[in-house]
């Protein structure tokens, strides 16, 4: 796709906001030309017309002009405000993740990208996605800063250790596009990249069923929760359990000891696993040990995905499979955790 004999001036437009970014770019090019031509022409014209004809001449004195100063202050201001507004609108689209997107987990690591689909498929330095479907990446890193950048989609976002950042896009054109790490990350920074493959839905379904899926993040999370880490010994069991109720907690307000409230988002859940005593839920004792060093970033992603999938009804039937939780509308996880066969209906 990318290889042509001619030097390409623009990367391909392959996402829904690529044209908006390009439009902004063309607008700015036009503004730049509209400024450059008159100013450059004036400089050349003055330099030639008023060139020195007599050594050490004393040209007529001239003072400034309030009118001119006002005009050439206001015009750039107004134009720069249009640029600001245009940029802000496009930015708002780029960084407001939509509801109901297909979720992909991304973990950066010197010097590779580890990705996992909601359906369990893992990829390294490659991302396969269907065309025409909103995709949301939940990203973090095991070590230093990275940046997940796809020029053909005109978007990128830093990946920051210790927190989640998000990126979303909707591909519009099947193809193979560059994936770069855009934030300097050390020795093999320029090798930390690969390709994004945008496929027709049918091809994507084939790809999904053709690759080893293993456990989905929700399944892996439940395994960790119930068996490996033993979270369930305190966080399950009904009204008498020692730890906070997790069912339906996701994206809801939680009252903390001390009166503050927080929204139980990905970041909060992650933080509660790693630094349990920093934000204690009201009515509970700070007895939970830290799991820092015991869970990998991927396992954290799985735990968050599992806790997301817990709904109040699920508390009753704790052992039911997560895909049955179709009644949960608040959390997109309920939909996107569906098996590939469900995707083909879209």
């Amino acid at each position, binding site marked *: 796709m990318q290889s042509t004999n001619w030097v390409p001036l623009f990367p391909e437009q392959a996402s829904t906001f690529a044209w908006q970014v390009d439009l902004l770019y063309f607008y700015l090019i036009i503004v730049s030309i509209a400024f450059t031509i008159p100013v450059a022409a004036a400089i050349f014209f003055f330099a030639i017309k008023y060139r020195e004809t007599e050594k050490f001449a004393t*040209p007529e004195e001239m003072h*400034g002009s309030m009118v*001119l100063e006002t005009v050439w202050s206001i015009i750039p201001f107004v134009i*720069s405000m249009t640029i600001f507004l245009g940029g802000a609108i496009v930015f708002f689209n780029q*960084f407001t993740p939509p509801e109901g997107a297909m979720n992909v987990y991304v973990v950066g690591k010197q010097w590779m990208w580890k990705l996992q689909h909601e359906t369990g498929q893992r990829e390294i330095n490659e991302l396969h996605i269907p065309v025409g479907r909103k995709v949301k990446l939940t990203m973090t890193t095991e070590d230093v800063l990275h940046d997940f950048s796809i020029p053909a989609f005109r978007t990128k976002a830093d990946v920051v250790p210790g927190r989640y950042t998000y990126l979303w896009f909707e591909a519009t054109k099947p193809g193979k596009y560059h994936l770069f790490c*855009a934030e300097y990350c050390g020795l093999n*920074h320029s090798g930390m990249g690969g390709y994004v493959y945008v496929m027709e839905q049918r091809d994507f379904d084939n790809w999904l069923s053709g690759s080893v899926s293993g456990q989905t993040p929700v399944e892996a999370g439940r395994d960790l929760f119930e068996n490996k880490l033993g979270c369930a010994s305190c966080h399950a069991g009904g009204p008498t359990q020692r730890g906070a109720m997790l069912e339906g907690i996701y994206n809801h307000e939680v009252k903390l000891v001390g009166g503050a409230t927080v929204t139980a988002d990905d970041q909060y859940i992650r933080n509660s696993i790693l630094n349990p005593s920093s934000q204690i839920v009201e009515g509970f004792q700070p007895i939970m040990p830290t799991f820092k060093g015991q869970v990998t970033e991927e396992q954290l992603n799985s735990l968050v995905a599992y806790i997301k999938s817990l709904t109040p009804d699920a508390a009753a039937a704790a052992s039911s499979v997560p895909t049955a939780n179709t009644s949960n509308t608040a959390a997109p996880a309920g939909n996107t955790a569906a098996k590939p066969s469900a995707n083909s209906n879209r």
Partner: protein
Amino acid sequence: MNAENVISSGYGGSKLNYITNGSTLKSWLLTKDHKRIAIMYLISVSGFFLMGGLYAATIRLELLTPASDLLESGTYNKVFTQHGILMIFFFLIPSIPAVLGNFLLPIMIGAKDLALPRINLLSLYFYWIGGGMTLFALMQGGIDTGWTFYTPYSTTFSNSFVMLVGLGIFVNGFSSILTGLNFIVTIHTMRAPGMTWFRMPLFVWAHYATSLVMILGTPVIAITILLLALERLGGVGIFDPAIGGDPILFQHLFWFYSHPAVYIMILPGMGVISELISNFSRKKIFGYEFIAFSSIAIAVFGFLVWGHHMFVSGQSIYAGLVFSFLTMVVAVPSAIKMFNWTATMYKGSVSYDTPMLYAIGFMGLFLIGGLTGLFLGAMGLVVHLTDTYFVVAHFHYVMVGGQVIAYLGGIHYWWPKMTGRMYSEFWGKISAMLVFVGFNLTFFPQFILGYQGMPRRYASYPEEFQVLNIFSTAGASVLGIGLLMPAVYLMHSLFFGRPAGDNPWMHPGLEWRTSSPPPTENFEVMPVVTWEAYEFGEESGMDIEAARRREAVIT
């Protein structure tokens, strides 16, 4: 200061000037003369510029081919890091203020020296110590964090000499602070009788604004480096999330200094250009007050836009909106300067001497540099452009196309004053044009590369980017030759150049009303200023007729 005196006291008199007044090494190293300190800065800064330039040449050679074949990526990472650190901290920041500012600022306002001459010498020593530490670290194996030192890479993951370089920059920061402090005190207290604020050359105004940024901004980077050391050596969690820190905090602190530092690197250049445009058009500058206050406005707003380096860092959308808005506002004072410079040439008497060629080149390059700044302030667009070659091209247009070109223009303009000799005008013009052409050929293709998505700091890159990289490397060789030429003909002029006389350009600034090179105390008699800045008419007291007769003899 009568007119006769200005013209007749030519070069070669028996009077001592600042160069001949003492010839021992000690008389240089322990001097309190701002002019000698400026010359020592000039030599040191040129050395760092040469080193930074060699690193740049290495980078361009490596990028000639897509694979990382000339250098391994680890070496490449060190090369671009050291290019950035040497150029920014040890060349661009001190270049115009410490060399031209040091030499000219006291003379331009009719003072004998800076207000605090010992502090001035101390600042030079801080610069040398900081530079020495950095050079030592480079010889030990260098540093690979990028000049931005982003955490947690710089604190936990990099095995290179981060702390030593950090210490070098820390010490060097005091050099900036002391210079800025000295300039502010000097401008407030040392102006000659009649030199009111609004009679000061715009070069002095620009340095006033720069000094404000230096003394307010530099302590922040010093504190940031200390915090970095505290974490790297003491294990205190400040920036590293593994021990409870926040890596984004580092970016805030770093850019809180480093964005204003960008204005340290361009405001003095704007001051030089104001001098050049006005003087070589032989006309009072258009909109003096607007240019003066736009410098102050840039300095103030410069402190409020640091977040535009962090649009994709995970910073909140609303913080981003504020930073984007303020960034757009900064465009206005820059535009005001641009328009006023252009208007100054209108109905002037424009000469094409070498410094003016540099000034015209500056206007062209700064226009592109400034306008592409708007691209990078527009949030929706900058997401795509962040950390690509578009950014690299933009800041080189501002830093090299702006500050370096202005610095070279200034060096050429004041060379006869500093040394008493004229350089070859022919070679000067050739080099000015080579620099302009080579610069554009080097960096314009990088805008296109950036929009295509080529990330910066890449030792190897996909093949489709190669054609433009070849253009860029070809341009860099032209630029390199253009930049090396002045080193040759300026050195040549020191020994074989024709004596310049006190006022070769017949310009009215105070610096042209003393001998070339100036005496240690700058003026034989304390000047009394009765004319406005850039006053070319009769009130200036210059004897144009005598100058014409002298010119006729030379030619």
